[in-house]
């Protein structure tokens, strides 16, 4: 039956509706959007898949944090502060993971999507700008979820006692940390060129890792406790070592999230 079709098609160069090999399309107009939640989840799924397939980004979001975690948990040469060493190491590396995904990864992806016109095209699709931002937030949440699972598993291998209560106490810090750093990423990606975003996002990651209070308690606490990185590190350390919700650092994160979101809303350029 396939053979009959193939035999019929040669010589069908003459335009004829009956004999044309092209599939007919029902192009009658009746465009309707999928529901908001479905559109947003689709966008979040797409962005998550793209991030998980991107080798450079995996290096930043999983490989480097795992190396830092193992090094910090299994050696004693670096002072991580007071408390159970594996818990301190995990808290610091979760903070690094949030900055990798919500800030560096998201800034680079958004910066290049902006340069390549992806943001403009999606802004004309049923997704719209709101759905695009919601999708990005969903992708950050999904990726941080993957990082938490992988890093907790590695931490267990390094002698960490699984600690559901500590993780629950860490949840507000993770959520606010994602919010603050995603908003900062959008502010960066929406205001400067893609190449500058790439350089700045990686440079800031290294700076914050070295002296921003993410993994190591800061030598200048007065400065880093006001930074979102220092606040995130402190809040996660309190949660994982003392099961405490550190209100002060959470308020710092909230302030950064609100300020960066407001600045993005004001200055973000879609093209």
């Amino acid at each position, binding site marked *: 039956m396939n053979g009959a079709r193939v035999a019929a098609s040669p010589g069908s160069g003459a335009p004829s509706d009956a004999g044309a090999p*092209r599939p007919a399309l029902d192009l009658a107009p009746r465009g309707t959007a999928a529901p908001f939640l479905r559109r947003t989840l689709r966008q979040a799924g797409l962005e998550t898949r793209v991030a998980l397939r991107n080798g450079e980004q995996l290096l930043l979001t999983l490989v480097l944090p795992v190396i830092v975690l193992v090094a910090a948990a299994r050696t004693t040469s670096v002072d991580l502060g007071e408390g159970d060493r594996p818990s301190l190491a995990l808290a610091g590396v979760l903070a690094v993971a949030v900055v990798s995904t919500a800030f560096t990864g998201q800034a680079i992806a958004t910066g290049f999507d902006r340069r390549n016109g*992806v943001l403009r095209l999606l802004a004309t699709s049923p997704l719209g700008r709101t759905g695009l931002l919601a999708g990005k937030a969903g992708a950050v949440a999904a990726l941080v979820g993957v990082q938490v699972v992988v890093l907790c598993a590695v931490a267990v291998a390094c002698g960490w006692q699984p600690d559901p209560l500590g993780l629950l106490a860490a949840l507000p810090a993770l959520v606010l940390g994602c919010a603050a750093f995603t908003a900062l990423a959008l502010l960066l990606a929406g205001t400067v060129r893609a190449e500058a975003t790439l350089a700045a996002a990686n440079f800031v990651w290294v700076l914050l890792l070295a002296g921003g209070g993410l993994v190591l308690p800061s030598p200048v606490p007065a400065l880093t406790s006001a930074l979102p990185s220092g606040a995130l590190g402190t809040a996660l350390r309190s949660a994982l070592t003392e099961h405490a919700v550190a209100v002060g650092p959470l308020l710092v994160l909230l302030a950064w999230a609100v300020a960066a979101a407001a600045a993005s809303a004001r200055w973000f350029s879609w093209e």
Partner: protein
Amino acid sequence: MAAASPLPPAPAPGDAADPAVEAHGLRKSYGGTTVLDGLSFTARRGRVTALLGPNGAGKTTTVACCEGLRRVDSGTLRVLGRDPATDGASLRPRVGVVLQDGGLPTGVGALEVLRHVAGLHSDPLPVGPLAERLGLTSFARTRVRRLSGGQRQRLALACALVGRPELLFLDEPSAGLDPQARLAVWDVVREARDAGVAVLLTTHLMEEAERLADEVVVVDHGRVVAAGSPADLTRGTAALTFTAPTGLPTASLTSALPAGAVVTETEPGRYAVTGVPADPRTAATVSSWCATHDVLPQGLGAARRTLEDVFLDLTGRTLR
């Protein structure tokens, strides 16, 4: 059949009363540079309307305003009866957009992009036949960043069509396409038009405007300088042309012709007589003038002026 020639589409009921795009007196400037300077036009359902103009004429800005990506400074703009600057959410599911610079996510496979856009609609076209029709199946799994310009362009058109739009915006749809792909794209655009879709495209390709558009709006310096069907725009502008040795004294021939005649050597050895009817009387005058100058006017006859001639007359021949 529908693909063969610009068949006049059956006017939909309420056609005139219900235009897909209605622009009146659009003005837009960027930092003191006027881009749109009182631009007005209408695009109807079941019609292909082409905005034709040189680079920088304001075509892309016009389409971007219609798509809700930019706002006009003044003037009225209605897209499917709504204001694109404020009613974007209700318009977006009803329009399909091909941007000039693509805008497809680069790290994703071709068919994955199409499925993604389809998933943003509640009743999309089946992805398989659409992909087959636009020849996407041979690179279905290739990431967008590895596609050629023509492959991206076809994928972009598929993404614009998959939501069954009422209105299709195509900014330079033939850019980077080889002749086969261009014909395939034109074919699908005509099919969409025949199904009742309004198509608004921008182009600087005369052939595209002439063969694909039902209505041509010639835009220059942010204004409409002419509008009508390709036949309307080229009607009554036939020229008498012939080939002869280069360097003929055209002023002498001009004075032999009735007042108003203009003789130009359009390219070396190629002459055109305009400004007077391209009729047997003019042909006879040209012929006898040539005889007295011992010249054989080869291929003497009336050539219908192309849209390109009309366009160059309207927008000038200088580079910008």
